[in-house]
């Protein structure tokens, strides 16, 4: 176990030195990857772990980004200070909209979540509350500052975004290996049996939505800060599809898989830039090919480890299993 952690640490450290070796463009590509990684990790809680077909995550992302933009541009709240507010508002929104639909099954939930993201987008385009700037969106969002340092260049954002991503990975890893994380998996596997084992399935499903939305809302802050201008088309149904694809292609419920998925889904179209007009054609074919090649996702979740030393009265211990 410790050896594994050490390996992850080394890999993370190596990754942290990346901006020194690549140009700002590729650094910015990595930033986009990181942003989608955070988003997909938050969707993974709902889609991967609880198994709810949610294709409307961009709605929560939008709420977070617009909250940030309005707080910053209209009320001059520093961008990073707006982050908790963005999360909370997105979570509240999730609480309100998810409650009545939580019992819907599979594809019915899927279309309803698509509906929610479309309604949000249309509301933004139509300048709801006279605050979202309609189709123009909101521009002039200030660059974030951290301890007096102005985050401006791609390399600055690299550390902001990937730092946030690292924290997300750690916390979600803990969450996965807890009562909460397991309960979501029970619901995914068999809802009736989960309820019959004493899991309050409705509450947990709602909890997954609220947590996922909270995180997506915070990712919205990062996005607003990075772009300095946001508009409704950045939160279309297609955005949700991209996040959805990252989770499924990477491997439902697998943090490593979702990270890899983010690299591929966001990174490949950039790699294919040389192909000009044909790049999306190749990308589409690559998506099909990858899915066929790894039908369970690229890196399906590894079984959880339980340390049974001192618990098993017999001779068998964790090591013997391996």
């Amino acid at each position: 176990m410790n050896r594994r952690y050490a390996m992850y640490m080394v890999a993370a450290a190596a990754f942290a030195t990346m901006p020194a070796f690549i140009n700002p463009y590729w650094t910015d590509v990595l930033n986009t990857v990181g942003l989608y990684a955070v988003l997909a990790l938050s969707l993974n809680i709902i889609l991967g772990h609880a198994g709810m077909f949610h294709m409307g995550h961009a709605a929560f992302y939008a709420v977070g980004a617009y909250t940030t933009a309005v707080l910053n541009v209209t009320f001059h709240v520093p961008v990073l200070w707006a982050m908790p507010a963005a999360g909370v508002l997105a979570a509240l929104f999730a609480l309100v909209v998810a409650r009545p639909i939580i019992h819907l099954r599979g594809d019915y939930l899927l279309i309803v979540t698509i509906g929610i993201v479309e309604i949000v987008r249309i509301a933004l385009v139509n300048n709801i509350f006279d605050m979202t700037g309609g189709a123009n969106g909101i521009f002039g969002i200030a660059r974030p500052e951290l301890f007096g340092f102005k985050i401006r260049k791609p390399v600055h954002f690299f550390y902001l975004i990937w730092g946030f991503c690292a924290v997300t990975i750690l916390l979600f890893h803990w969450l996965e290996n807890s009562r909460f994380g397991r309960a979501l998996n029970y619901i995914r596997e068999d809802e009736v049996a989960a309820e019959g084992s004493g899991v309050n399935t409705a509450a947990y499903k709602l909890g997954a939505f609220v947590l996922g939305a909270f995180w997506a809302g915070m990712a919205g802050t990062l996005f607003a800060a990075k772009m300095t201008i946001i508009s409704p088309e950045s939160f279309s149904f297609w955005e949700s599809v991209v996040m959805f694809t990252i989770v499924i292609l990477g491997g439902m419920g697998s943090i490593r898989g979702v990270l890899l998925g983010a690299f591929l889904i966001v990174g490949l179209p950039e790699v294919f830039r040389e192909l000009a007009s044909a790049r999306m054609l190749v990308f589409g074919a690559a998506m099909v090919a990858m899915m066929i090649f790894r039908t369970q996702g690229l890196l399906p979740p590894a079984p959880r480890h339980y340390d049974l030393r001192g618990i098993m009265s017999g001779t068998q211990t964790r090591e013997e299993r391996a």
Partner: protein
Amino acid sequence: MEEFFQQLTNGLAVGGIYALIALGYTMVYGVLKLINFAHGDLFTIGAYLGLTLLTSMGLTGHLGAVAGVLVLAVMVQVLVAIIGYLLERVAYRPLRQSPRLSAVVSALGASIFFQNAVMLIYGARFQVYPHDILPSATVSLLGLDVPLVRILMFLTSVVLMLGLYFFIQKTRTGTAIRAAAIDQGAAKLMGINVNRVVSLVFLIGPALGGAAGLMVGLYYGQINFTMGWVYGLKAFTAAILGGIGNIPGAMVGGLLLGVIEALGAAYISIAWKDAIAFFVLIIILIIRPTGLLGERVADKI
């Protein structure tokens, strides 16, 4: 009041097309439990193939409008059916035993592929069907002038729906399709050739989609490579609204969606039209969680 009826016919005309695409969606979904996101693009392909055949072969010139369009429709359906069949073999069959959502992602990939393939082959510009192929006569209905073509399109949708419904409910092959939809293994034990059933469904569904594409091309005239995405999403919504997997449901859902959109645009706001439609959908699903005509089998425990 006249405006209301006018809007109703507007809604039914649009809804008829949604319904036709939704039928294909629902067929495929019924058997494979697969949301075939590429279905909308098969619709686009139908529209483009129709245009190519129309302009290259001059069918309507040689055979006259009615016969020409019918021959054209058959050719388009056959071609799109073949593409649908190949799609299933290449992108979906290898995923038959995998988690359902894997196939959904494969479908999304296929959709991107088709959309861009059409763009590369035909160009990104709008393409336009020749004008005046269809008769421009209008029929007086309840004091309204309704274009004849709209009525014909609507009737075509209804006839296809009824035909499909009887095919699924009453014929031996239809029963086989329904059985394979529930449990493929058990269906094999009944002596059903499941691969053939799936292939058949992937011939019928895309053929319907292609027919709808041709219809849109002929009537509205203007087609482009992204149109399938919008229509596909609408049709998926319609299928769910009616209860996915259910053939009359797709019809009812499609028509209803068209009417909701028209009335929403007329009496609430044009700009919020789609939001209103989704809102109504959500309310309906909250009340009836498996759609209007969807089966509601209690989970026997």
